Every structure is written in structure tokens, then in C-alpha cells.
């Protein structure tokens, strides 16, 4: 199903180039202030808590829960395969937009536990999520 999906690839942005390098290495990197340690997402060039411009990256544990979700139907192909877009409350303490895959739409629920996987989506590798417990109701399709 993923090979039918047309993905708009990320564009070059000097403030997040490190994130996409991490994705290519199979790691979900989050930005953390080098001075006060606050993890922030989306990333910024300065820490709003202490004004430091020094930051480091922290690899996400890749687990969290679904805060909200929609089905994104591709433009111009309303009967085509939809992508489940999720807001994930990461255990790292930040909220992150991604997709939920291998999950029937009828089983998606706010609060469900999910875990990170990297998938090739129409030629673009993206961080995606799958149900944390594939044996739970609604597991792998």
C-alpha cells in the first residue's frame, strides 16, 4: 500500500537538516538545549527557557501515545489509499506529527500506544508509527 502513496519530500531547511540526516540513519533525533536540557519540538535556533544557542540532539525512545488522528486522502484521488496522520505524544515529552501504518482505520483510537519504525513512503524515508502491541485488538492488518 505504501508504494501507492505520493509523498511531498522534505525541503532543505538549515534549522532541521540534522533531523533528516538522523532519519536517513534510522534515528528519530530531538533537539535538546545544551545548557538547560529542555527538549523542544519543532526545533528552534535558540532556547526560549535560557536563551542558549547551543543545543544537542537526543535520540527518541520512539514510544508514545496517539493524541489525535485523521485520515489524509490524497488530493485528486478521493478513493485512493488514505494515510493516517497522527499527533503522537512521545514519551520524550514532546508532541510529533507522523503517520500510523499497518493499522486498520477502524481500530485507531486516541490514547493507543504506538512505537516508531522507519518506512520508505513513496521514495521518501519517514518516521512512522505502528501499534505498540501488535496482538492487541486491531493489530497488524
Amino acid at each position, binding site marked *: 500500500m505504501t508504494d501507492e502513496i505520493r509523498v511531498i519530500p522534505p525541503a532543505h531547511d538549515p534549522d532541521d537538516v540534522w533531523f533528516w540526516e538522523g532519519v536517513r540513519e534510522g534515528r528519530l533525533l530531538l533537539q535538546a538545549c545544551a545548557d538547560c536540557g529542555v527538549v523542544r519540538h*519543532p526545533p528552534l535556533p535558540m532556547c526560549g527557557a535560557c536563551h542558549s544557542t547551543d543545543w544537542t540532539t537526543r535520540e527518541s525512545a520512539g514510544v508514545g501515545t496517539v493524541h*489525535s*488522528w485523521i485520515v489524509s*486522502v490524497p488530493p485528486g484521488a478521493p478513493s485512493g489509499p488514505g494515510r493516517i496522520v497522527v*499527533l503522537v505524544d512521545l514519551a520524550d515529552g514532546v*508532541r510529533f*506529527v507522523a503517520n500510523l501504518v499497518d493499522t486498520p482505520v477502524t481500530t485507531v483510537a486516541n490514547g493507543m500506544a504506538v512505537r516508531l519504525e522507519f518506512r520508505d*513512503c513513496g521514495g521518501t524515508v519517514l518516521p512512522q508509527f505502528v501499534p505498540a502491541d501488535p496482538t492487541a485488538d486491531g493489530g497488524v492488518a
Partner: protein
Amino acid sequence: MSARPAFAGTTVIAGIGHTEYSKDSGRSELQLAAEAARAAIADAGLTPADVDGLVTFTQDANDELLLMRALGIPEVRFLSRTPNGGAGAYGTIQHAAAAVAAGAAETVLVYRAFNERSGRRFGQPNQRVTPPGWNWYLPFGLDTPAKTYALAFQRYMHRYGLTNEDFGRYSVVARRHAATNPDAWFFGRPITLAEHQESRWIVEPILRLLDCCQESDGGVALIVTRSERAHDLPHPGVTIAAASVDHLVEGSVMHNYYHHDLAEFPEAAALGRRLYDQAGLTAADVDAAMLYENFSPVVFLQLEAFGFCGPGEARDFIADGHIDLDGSLPVNTHGGLLGEAYIHGVNNVLEAVRQLRGTAANQLADPERILVAGGSSGLILEAVR
């Protein structure tokens, strides 16, 4: 009352003007702006030579100096633009009023004009990422405003157990108000809840087509000046009792995903507190509201944030008829952006002015105070008696 800025209660909207609202104006955006401005200046009983300030949106394509030439305005001494599209729509009035109260200008023309249906359509899918910031959304399929907003609306529906039919009850009201407003694109075309429920899904199960604002061509304009000056003008004007733009850290206009609870609208709640403080009022003092609705759920979130009903109560508030013309808080009496037209929310200000003058198509019985808001920017306008 310490929060009262100099412009609150000392400035007025003295004139309003607009073009027809259509899907294909057949003329340039500059012409729409000039026609709306010409009408607003005439409505105020002024001449172009009286205008010495101009305010519009950062997104407006109409150059101030070209508009000056088109109108024959000989000289201006104040220009300003406000960010954030429709969410910042009412910041234009705040800028104009603040400039007037500070003496930076005497008479400010506020305008917004576009061919948003026949030209560039905001609702069409994005084709590529535009940095900065969009890498976090577009690659994951949030390629339209409907999807982008729906991701937050879902949390509101989940929290309070709403269905799309609940949102449809607002759309029915908006279209009923538009049906008796000759300026509205949907004049004479009310809808039933069943028709709403038969319209196609845009983001299932959250938004249907009839939950979405229109795409419109048109121009609107208005004149802001000092209250004292307006005494000599044909219309007494409506007083700008409050005007504010409120944003909170971690907020976002389009991707407002990072506050703790997405079933609330904290920017609107902050805005409401600010507006009531400035005007020395409470929600109970407001006679009607013009609420920006790019999508119907935004009305629900704003009704709750501004204190017209409690959290999660907007569904019953609307179903029980409170926002109807004969309700306790009539909302979008012209049909709003769903029913009248999408002129980026500025047409809602014109409706508030008409209601307070007593000249609206769906005239309420002597409203005295109207709240006009778009989530993070808003006004309270008061009738001059």
C-alpha cells in the same frame, strides 16, 4: 480598567464599503480594493484627501501606493500590515485605531481584496514544502488547511463526544442567515441538516464540504477615525471599545498542536479576557458575535473560549437555538464565511457595523455591543446612541 489602551472607546469605524461577492470577479484585485475603498470613503462622508493612513494584511497583494493613485489620495503618513491571515484579520483595526489614537494618522483606510476563488485558492493542496517549518507537516500528508485543522478538531470531538452532525447544525444556521442576506453568495439558498450530511467528506469523519468556508472573490474596506471627528460625519460611527491580537508561546496559527489540551483554544480565551478587560464588559454584555469560521468547528471552540457557554457546551448552545437571529447570542447574522463570503473575515466587521447602525439585512433589535473575532484577533464594537 488599567488595561484600557488609548484607542479603546475613543476611535470609531465611520464608513464601510464592499464589492459584490462572487466566484469570478472578472477584474483585478487592485480594482476590487479600489472599488471597496471608494465605497467606504463615500459611506463615511469623506473624500480621498481625508485619508492619511492605510492598513491591510501582509498577505494582501495590493500595493498601497498603487491604491493611493487609484483613489487619488494625495498623501499618507501611516502604513501598516498585519500577519497571520484570517486569524489576524482584526489586527488591522487595532493598528488603525492605535495609529489614530496616537496621532500618527487621522483617518485610516483598512482594506482587504482578492480573487481567492478565480485566482489563487487557499484550500488547494500544497505541492511542495516551503521552509521554514513545513517539513514537520507536509511530508506526512497535512497538505490542505482542512486536514491541518481537522487534526486538532478531532481532539475536541473526542473529548466531548461530538459527531460531524453537531458541526452541521452550525452550517445550517449560517446558511439560513445567508439565505435572507441579499449580499450573500448563498442568498436564497438555505440548507437542511440532511443536505449537510449528504455533502461529501473532506476529512472523514470530521469535516464535510458544507463545514468549509467558501472561496470568494471580492473586496471590503472600512474607515477608522477619532470618535470626536465622527460627530460631524453622516454616520455616528460605531465605537471601537476593544481591539487585540493575542498569541501564546508554543502556539501556531495553522499547526496549533503543541498546547497541552487541543480541545481548548487558549489564544481565543486570552483574547476574550483582553477584550472584556479593555471594554469593561463580560460575555453577558455582548449582544451578538461575528466569529471567523474557516471551518465550522472553530465556532464551537470560540463560543466556549469567549465564555458564551462552558467547555463542551457549544453543541447544545447551538442546537438549542442560542445563535439564531432570535437567540440569546446571534452569531454571524450575515451568514459568515460559510454563507456570505470569504473575504478573509473582514466582511464580518462590516456586518457588525451594519447591525450596530441598524441597517443589516437580518437586523437584530437594537444590539449595543458585538464581539468580532477570529481566534487570536478580535474586537468589541459598540453602538453610538
